[in-house]
């Protein structure tokens, strides 16, 4: 349990505050999105820092693989604060802005204590899904299944909005590789517009990617473990006509 990475749920966000955890996640192929700004520039939108924000799909994969644990932010932070003694000290930096300097909370909490806190504050993926989406929706489960399918095949996934899909899949770390696939996840019997096949397929080819439809395969549905078995088709412009 001591090795589990605490994924702190604050409101609707899943956050990782510890740099060593962020490094471990990167090695595990979980990229997330850095979301921290400098205190003086809260509207900053480049060069963001800690905390790392994870998507529910990344978090669900980590929990499934027994690599991370979702914890309720309020309960978790209360208990961490109880253990670590905060010596708050106000210092004034240039420009007359006051900062409160605190010691690194994690350095005072040992692995055993952290594991206990995580056990106490743990929340399940399904509980979080209900909190985020109102009820557990099949679409979210399917997106989660699609995430797992590609992560288990060594793709790194990032949000797909940039290219108009649900996910963008990279053949390795996104800092080293361009992405290969734009994933579009379809529910069973969900239809798509052929004009979208043209626009998305042409866009994907223009940026040297393939547009990939991902859906549950109707034939080999495994009823026993409820896991949807997935199938995909990749679409590219044929290069003529």
């Amino acid at each position: 349990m001591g090795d589990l990475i605490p994924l702190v749920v604050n409101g609707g966000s899943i956050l990782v505050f510890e740099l060593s955890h962020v490094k471990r996640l990167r090695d595990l192929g979980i990229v997330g999105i850095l979301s921290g700004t400098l205190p003086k520039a809260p509207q900053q939108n480049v060069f963001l820092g800690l905390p790392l924000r994870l998507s529910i799909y990344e978090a669900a994969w980590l929990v499934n693989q027994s690599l991370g644990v979702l914890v309720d932010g309020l309960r978790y932070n209360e208990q961490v604060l109880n253990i670590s003694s905060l010596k708050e000290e106000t210092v004034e930096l240039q420009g007359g802005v006051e900062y409160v300097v605190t010691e690194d909370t994690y350095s005072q909490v040992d692995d055993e204590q952290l594991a206990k806190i995580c056990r106490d504050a743990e929340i399940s993926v399904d509980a979080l899904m209900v909190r985020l989406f109102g009820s557990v929706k099949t679409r979210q489960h399917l997106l989660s299944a699609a995430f797992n399918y590609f992560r288990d095949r060594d793709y790194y996934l990032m949000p797909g909005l940039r290219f108009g899909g649900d996910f963008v899949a990279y053949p390795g770390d996104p800092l080293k590789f361009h992405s290969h696939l734009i994933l579009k996840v379809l529910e069973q019997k969900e239809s798509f517009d052929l004009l979208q096949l043209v626009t998305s397929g042409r866009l994907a080819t223009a940026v040297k990617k393939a547009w990939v439809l991902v859906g549950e395969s109707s034939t080999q549905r495994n009823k026993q473990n409820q896991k949807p078995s997935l199938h995909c088709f990749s679409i590219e412009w044929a290069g003529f006509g």
Partner: protein
Amino acid sequence: MSIAQQTLTNLVHYNLWTDVTVHDVQESAESTPYRFALLSGLPPSKLDQSDKEGLREWVIARLLEDRHSSMSEIEQFFRAIESLAPRPKRVTLALVNDDATVTYYFVHDGAIKPRQN
């Protein structure tokens, strides 16, 4: 003119394909009627670097006008070919518009590495 004929004409006279044939597809009784036609032919040159020389290409012709398609329809494309030959790695989807334009897209079975062009 049927979409099969229109696609055949476009392949032969516009894209210079040879030996283009229209195939009859047997529809299974329980499925909805197919909204596509099946053709095959030989492109003037390899469509992909990794293709074997003289590879016979399967073409599915489909009207853009009936907008909706689905994963199960794409599965039908492959099933239709499977009734005549082994399941291919990809099919070429010919989208036929009402202004006589035909545009071609590859539909690969499974997730692939994109072509280097």
